[in-house]
């Protein structure tokens, strides 16, 4: 005999039998704002600072370098910075996915290098059309990622080792493709070169996009609030929505204004922002993203809840491989040539450091793709500031290393705090 009817029916029965139980429940619906404020206070108390530390670090970096050299915050330097972050930023977004499930992908630098080399070899050496070469290069990253994920999850080799093998092997393949010259130049006004070369100078485009983004944010926030109010649940106060929107508006309009005073809005930066927004929605607002976070919180728990762990893991490595390949095209685009540089290890280190400095946890289950943007901005700002000051890269490495260490210390402390609460 099956259980008849749903919970609603059962609930009706309970309501008839015990009015006392219902009174308890009504308390949940009272004082929405109080609940909301309480939750916000709890997050603060528990050290869930979100992007605040990274934003603070970025502000400090900019203030220090601006005071040392007034050209640092010039439209020209910021425009260059805005394009320089894109390659590493793209790779870092993929790294965030892998860190969220509590794993690591050491092959992303080599895959980025391979992608650039493959594009150049197919397009220049074999005369293939640019579009087809781009698709093959990116597809190659996806397939390599799928392979890493498969070996990791189906055979059980630790991700660290699989992707370390990938780091070596894909780097070898890249060197082979680049040939004895170790560099392949491609057209400076072709598709890939345009990725970082193209700027939208027109004010209409820049301010239009800024307005569009701000209004979209405002509408989504209000729609969300409306549904919560209708359902009688805690909601964000209107004042906070407007304050957040205003803050967003200030940031985007100032950015558009400043970039407009040089060459305009860089296409590369727009693509990176688009990828970040889409992946952020994917990770925070879809069942897929929910399950990615769940894997980082406990693989066994996720498996027993019915999550297809193997499929999720492989898909995450596909994302990271694909974005590494896309990032590689942006790196190559900057020089209009495929070189050994992305495979050298600095890209890998910077991408992982960017994700962690931006606030994504190395221990899995906590982070956001926006952290890739924040982290890469900090790293690239340090590099750019040091270059302006004419300081050797030796010092730059030491400072970036220090920032990374601080970020990891923060991360570890947050984890320890969470654990000590969990054991209580």
């Amino acid at each position: 005999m099956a259980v008849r009817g749903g919970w609603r029916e059962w609930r009706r029965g309970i309501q008839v039998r015990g009015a006392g139980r219902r009174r308890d429940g009504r308390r949940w619906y009272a004082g929405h704002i109080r609940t909301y404020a309480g939750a916000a206070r709890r997050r603060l108390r528990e050290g869930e600072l979100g992007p605040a530390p990274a934003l603070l670090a970025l502000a400090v970096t900019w203030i220090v370098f601006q005071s040392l050299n007034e050209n640092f915050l010039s439209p020209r330097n910021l425009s260059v910075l805005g394009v320089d972050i894109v390659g590493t930023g793209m790779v870092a977004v993929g790294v965030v996915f892998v860190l969220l499930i509590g794993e690591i992908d050491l092959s992303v630098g080599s895959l980025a290098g391979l992608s650039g080399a493959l594009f150049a070899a197919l397009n220049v050496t074999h005369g293939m059309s640019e579009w087809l070469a781009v698709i093959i290069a990116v597809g190659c990253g996806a397939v390599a990622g799928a392979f890493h994920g498969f070996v990791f999850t189906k055979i059980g080799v630790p991700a660290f080792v699989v992707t370390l093998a990938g780091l070596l092997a894909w780097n070898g393949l890249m060197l082979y493709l680049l040939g004895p010259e170790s560099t392949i130049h491609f057209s400076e006004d072709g598709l890939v070169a345009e990725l970082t070369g193209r700027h939208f100078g027109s004010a209409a485009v820049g301010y239009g996009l800024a307005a569009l983004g701000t209004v979209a944010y405002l509408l989504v926030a209000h729609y969300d609030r409306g549904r919560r109010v209708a359902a009688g649940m805690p909601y964000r106060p209107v004042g906070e929505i407007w304050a957040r929107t205003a803050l967003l508006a200030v940031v985007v309009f100032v950015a558009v204004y400043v970039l407009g005073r040089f060459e305009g809005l860089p296409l590369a930066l727009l693509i990176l922002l688009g990828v970040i927004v889409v992946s952020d929605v994917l990770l925070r607002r879809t069942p897929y993203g929910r399950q990615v976070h769940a894997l980082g919180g406990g693989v066994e728990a996720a498996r027993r809840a019915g999550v297809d762990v193997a499929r999720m893991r492989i898909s995450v490595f596909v994302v990271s491989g694909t974005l590494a390949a896309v990032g590689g095209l942006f790196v190559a685009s900057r020089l209009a040539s495929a070189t050994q540089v992305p495979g050298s290890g600095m890209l890998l280190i910077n991408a992982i450091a960017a994700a962690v400095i931006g606030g994504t946890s190395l221990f899995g289950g906590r982070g956001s793709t926006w952290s890739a943007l924040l982290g890469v901005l900090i790293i690239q700002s340090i590099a750019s500031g040091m270059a302006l000051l004419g300081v050797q890269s030796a010092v730059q490495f030491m400072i970036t290393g220090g920032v990374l260490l601080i970020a990891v210390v923060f991360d570890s402390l947050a984890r320890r705090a969470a654990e000590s609460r969990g054991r209580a």
Partner: protein
Amino acid sequence: MVQPLLALRGVSKRFAAVQALVDVELEIRAGEVVALVGDNAAGKSTLVKVISGAGPADKGVIEWEGGAVQIKRPQDAQALGIATVYQDLAMCGNLDVVANLFLGREIHRFGILDEVEMERRTRELLQILSIRIPDVRAPLATLSGGQRRVVAITRSFLDPPRLLLLDEPTASLGFEQTNQLLDLIEELRDRGAGVLLISHNMGDIKAVADRVAVLRLGRNNGLFNVSTTSQEQIISASTGATDNAALDRPPRPEEAWP
């Protein structure tokens, strides 16, 4: 004869060095609470994982309403209407209460999570079950051990289960919460669902169970009717003081519980 809801026939499972289950037989009828007792490491949790699909058996047959079924993954058991509260809870500490409840069966509209609906249903369910959780958006790691167990129990009630597996659910529960859980078990039974309750607490078993199955070193060691069996008899069967080769051994009347 009434068809059992779930029947295990000759289930065996082996971990590298340990033979955790040997030819275990178990039947759970609809509208019945079966308690499963046994000493530590008797194989109770292993048996629960066999039924829930978290750790399938090496050998043996699982029958559902009289027909043989394959339960190879947790999804298979969920599809049959089997809900499980594991001894180690198995929940994600970084996700909040709502997300844990709906993990693996998220509600979405056009592919976007419907947080509002999930939160509304969470509150409704907590209200129906008379369970109080101060903040349904708090990450699970910030809740106390007992609260986490309550959330795990709530999750198993998300869709009305046809068979509920409870692995030591009253451990770390407060007095009031334990009584509430026992009430819920009885209501579920009255609605025609089957319940498998693992507990070391004879009081709980006496309160809600109809029959008690004893496991000892991975083997069946007796099946008792709660209303006609003494507590000592069950305890001696699980500690191995008595060897109950025959199932359903008729108890002597003076040993019955008051």
